[in-house]
């Protein structure tokens, strides 16, 4: 005899069994795969060599404090460049999405800016500006290569971020603009209060992805010579003929980028949920 309560209990018990079995399978397969990989690494003929070259603990502890201090330059540069990229990228995107004939020259310039700067490898832009601009000896302009490296990163990234913003602006349905204009809002007000808030919300995950990328690419200014994390690690590495300092620098970058990546995941999930509840308006 089956009463509804019995059935519910039976189903719950079956679900519990399935969940337990799933957990066991996941654990066993993880142990097998990860254990296998570790075994393959440790038992390989070059393991001892590898360990002393890349994972030397004494080398790590000796170099880590100064690499960590130098890493603050990367963090500071990253934060300043990030703000600049957000502003310049937004300007470029807004200019590119205007339609007024009077703004045609600006639109042309913005398009060229994006095309050219996206077409040159970031390291070349950093190199050209970082060594080139100070060499001009223009009075009033800073001659600090770190400053110009930051400008180079800003230019390269603002071209990408500008396109991300632009995709967001174009994804807002034209009826939103029509509604804003029909209420008497000017084109600029419609952009500021109606289009942009929606556009930015939509491209936020993509923007954050670009910032994870920027966070790593600040290491490119090392070609200009400032004593930031990668540069300091390189110097240690060259002195000791050991790559552990580079690994130490990598650990520092990962310590920043992984939390950022998780944050992006969280925001993406939240956006998906809110969009599911929203639909088009």
């Amino acid at each position, binding site marked *: 005899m089956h009463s509804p309560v019995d059935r519910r209990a039976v189903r719950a018990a079956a679900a519990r069994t399935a969940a337990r079995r799933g957990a066991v399978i996941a654990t066993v397969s993880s142990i097998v795969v990860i254990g296998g990989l570790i075994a393959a690494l440790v038992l390989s003929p070059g393991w001892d060599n590898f360990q002393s070259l890349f994972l030397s603990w004494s080398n790590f502890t000796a170099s880590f404090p100064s690499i960590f201090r130098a890493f603050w330059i990367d963090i500071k540069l990253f934060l300043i460049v990030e703000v600049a990229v957000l502003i310049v990228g937004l300007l470029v995107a807004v200019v590119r999405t205007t339609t007024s004939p009077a703004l045609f020259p600006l639109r042309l310039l913005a398009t060229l800016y994006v095309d050219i700067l996206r077409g040159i490898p970031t390291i070349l832009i950093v190199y050209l500006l970082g060594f080139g601009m100070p060499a001009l000896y223009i009075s009033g302009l800073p001659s600090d290569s770190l400053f110009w490296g930051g400008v180079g990163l800003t230019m390269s990234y603002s071209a990408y971020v500008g396109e991300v913003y632009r995709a967001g602006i174009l994804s807002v349905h034209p*009826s*939103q603009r*029509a*509604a*804003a*204009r*029909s*209420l*008497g*809002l*000017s084109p600029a*007000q419609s952009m500021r*209060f*109606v289009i942009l*808030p*929606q556009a930015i*919300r939509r491209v936020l995950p993509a923007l954050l992805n670009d910032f994870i990328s920027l966070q790593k690419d600040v290491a490119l200014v090392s070609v200009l010579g400032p004593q930031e994390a990668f540069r300091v690690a390189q110097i240690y590495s060259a002195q000791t003929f050991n790559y552990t300092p580079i690994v130490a620098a990598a650990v520092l970058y990962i310590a920043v980028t992984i939390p950022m990546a998780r944050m992006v995941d969280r925001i993406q999930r939240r956006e998906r949920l809110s969009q599911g*509840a*929203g*639909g*088009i*308006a």
Partner: protein
Amino acid sequence: MTPPVIELRGVTKSFGTREVLRGIDLIVPEHHAVVLIGSSGSGKSTLLRCINLLEEIDDGDIFLDGEVITDPRVHADSARKRMGMVFQSFNLFPHRNVLHNITLAPTKAHRMPKSDAEAHARELLERFGLAGREHDYPDRLSGGQQQRVAIVRAIATRPRLLLLDEITSALDPELVGEVLDVVTELKHDGMTMVIATHEMEFARNVADQICFVHEGRIHEHGTSEQILNQPSTPEAQRFLRRLTDRAT
């Protein structure tokens, strides 16, 4: 004599080679409701969008309170500020709550103090059965509620003219009534309106004049009695017969 609120003279509009409006003449006196009927694609929506200057007309003139607004030298925003428009798909701003949807134009386009704009908005929400919804986002509201908010948003700037573009076409049938009731109430207040709709009963109730739009022209116009009961042109007869066939 005061000029009509809105007047159209010989308005034409093409999209590419497709002529959508082929010479529209229309006069809407103050406190009048003009209802546009006609099949989809006849040009009703384009006509409303042209009046609101969302589309640029090719030829002819549009006058608002006797002042030409389609002259290229006239600033379109200043004309739009004196009109309100409600769309078929509501077009509420999804990132702003109900209150901020309504107060955006009064505070930004009309430079009304925020407290005044909010007080006025609350008053209107209360009046149209939306009290307590101020802080909800549009996606929390039913279609009927969203459209009522859109109407409130359009009248919060105290416009001279209200344009309604098939405002119940996207609604579930049981929600149509609550939206049309709002419009009927505004009509009683004396709001001047141009309304595109497929709701013939509603048209009969609010219209001072009905225009049958066909192939970009006002094919026939008159009182609701004339147009709905004794249409004189075969096109209008055919259109109305199709509607009644569908209803039964």
